[in-house]
């Protein structure tokens, strides 16, 4: 079900993302750095196909990307991390490192769509807990100026184990909605 869900999402949102003003008029190497927050961040620990435990948080996010631009397409390596502190004062970070592909749909009121996939991981800082799995990201964005662009991304991480202290479960999923402000060097 997890894999099917991921595949359906990837097939459905196949339009790709792209920073317009700066990137659309150039080709070649580009880099970007971004920060933002995730107003919706939902962790779910699954045991026996049931929700065993979970958490919601509002977490800041940070991202880096670097890649290559060709006409309306861009392909890039990206990494992003969410970080939050839970009630037990444990600091957790989760993130996605992987490949992103972008496509500027010409004439879409300056907006673009984006997608990325790769390795998802979660770490509890100060504890031995670590989990990894696959992650998927889909989003929309709009350039604000030559270098700044605003993005809204949906992320789904499916982790093969649980990285929460004292929690019992088989696997963990993290679903989040993020707003990011990116600064791009083109």
């Amino acid at each position: 079900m997890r894999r099917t869900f991921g595949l359906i999402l990837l097939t459905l949102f196949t339009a790709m993302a792209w920073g317009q003003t700066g990137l659309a008029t150039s080709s070649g190497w580009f880099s970007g750095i971004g920060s933002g927050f995730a107003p919706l961040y939902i962790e779910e620990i699954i045991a026996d196909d049931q929700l065993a435990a979970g958490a919601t948080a509002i977490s800041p996010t940070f991202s880096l990307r670097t890649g290559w631009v060709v006409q309306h397409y861009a392909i890039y390596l990206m990494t992003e991390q969410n970080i939050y502190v839970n009630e037990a004062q444990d600091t957790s970070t989760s993130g996605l490192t992987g490949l992103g592909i972008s496509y500027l749909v010409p004439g879409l009121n300056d907006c673009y769509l984006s997608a990325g996939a790769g390795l998802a991981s979660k770490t509890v800082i100060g504890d031995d807990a670590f989990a990894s799995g696959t992650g998927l990201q889909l989003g929309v964005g709009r350039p604000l100026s030559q270098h700044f662009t605003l993005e809204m991304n949906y992320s789904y991480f499916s982790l093969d184990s649980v990285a929460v202290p004292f929690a019992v479960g088989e696997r963990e999923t993290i679903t989040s909605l993020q707003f990011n402000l990116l600064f791009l060097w083109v």
Partner: protein
Amino acid sequence: MYSARTSPGHCQPSLVLGLSVLCSLLLSSCALLSPKTNDDRMASISGQALVVSVPASNLDLTRLQNSARSEQTIMALVTAPFYRQAFTTNGNRNGSKLVVDDPSRLIVNNLVDYYKKEYQSRIVAKGTINNIDPQHLAHAVQQGDFVIDVRVSDLALIGNADNQQFHLQASYQLVVVDRLQASYLIQDRCAFAEPGNQQMIRHFSDNNGQAVAEFLRKYAADCLRYFAQGTLFPAQLTTLKDTIKTVQTTSMEKAQIPASGKGTSYGWLGLNSSVALYQEPEPDGLTLFALSASYTVGKRLSEQMSLMVNTELNILQADSFPTFSTQAIYGASLGVGAAYHPNSRLDRGVALLATGTMGQFLQQGVNLSTSGLGFQLVAFRPLLGELQGTVRYGFTQHLGATTAANNGGHLFGFGLAYPS
């Protein structure tokens, strides 16, 4: 004597540069510079609806651009360099008011018949617009996507100092306004003169300007053929010497093409409310109430279709009798799909979107998985000015690792949106 322009495709290379310079001085679309002929342009809008602007039957000489006075005699056609010549032949000039029949009406009616046959154009409205000012044009483009107008745009008596005589020069202008692109699809001018037919000014002023009317009528058919098929004729001019433009032309050239339904993309900010009904969990199911802010963007793909992307941020509340969740549930959704606009206006139509949603359901004790996929059918149209109303139906199937919470539900909603 005559200056004829060589027809497109048969240009001598040595003439190309000279003619290109001349063409750049003219308003008319020059086939040498632009690869598109009127035929190409009209073919590109095959089957479209035309609004026909029919000029008044008499030429309104008081609307001459250069004239600060309401001159209605033959002097209205005389330009500044030749005033003295015209005045010094006083006594030979008939001071009666000119009543000049305007054959533009014939040209536009025949041209429209030609378009109906050649390009399957449809006529949706027809009216007499005496003066193409922005308000008239704004009204005309409300009726249809393309407005066609033909009228006399230049008319002048050109003097010859040697023999104190004059000859006539005039042009018809064809304009097709494209409301969707907010631009002119066609802007062409058919200019002609009879420098070989020089007469004293009295000749042109006799019988209320009958000679002027006959001159205009004589070349109406030639100009019709030129507008329709690009066929040139011997009396056709490449340059207009000392012309007087009618105010109609000036207004048409400068008229702001109104924004209604224009362009190829749209963006709306909206507020929506909806209710979603789920049958699970039994026996009473689940009801979700949502209030959302949305941002919708779209891009025209063809005459009646556009690509639509809709993003929403939701605040939801669940009602699952007997418990009623008082916690606000936050969620978001993204929809991507296509919209159909039956009359080519981007501000009304029906859209089918594939949607993905997410929300803090499980965390707030609502038995629905965090993420879901589905579809929505949205109908939208303007309600008041630019304010739009939307109505939607959707179905969402929630998907996730917690299989017991993978329920599907039907959504009904309405909203308001404003162009951003």
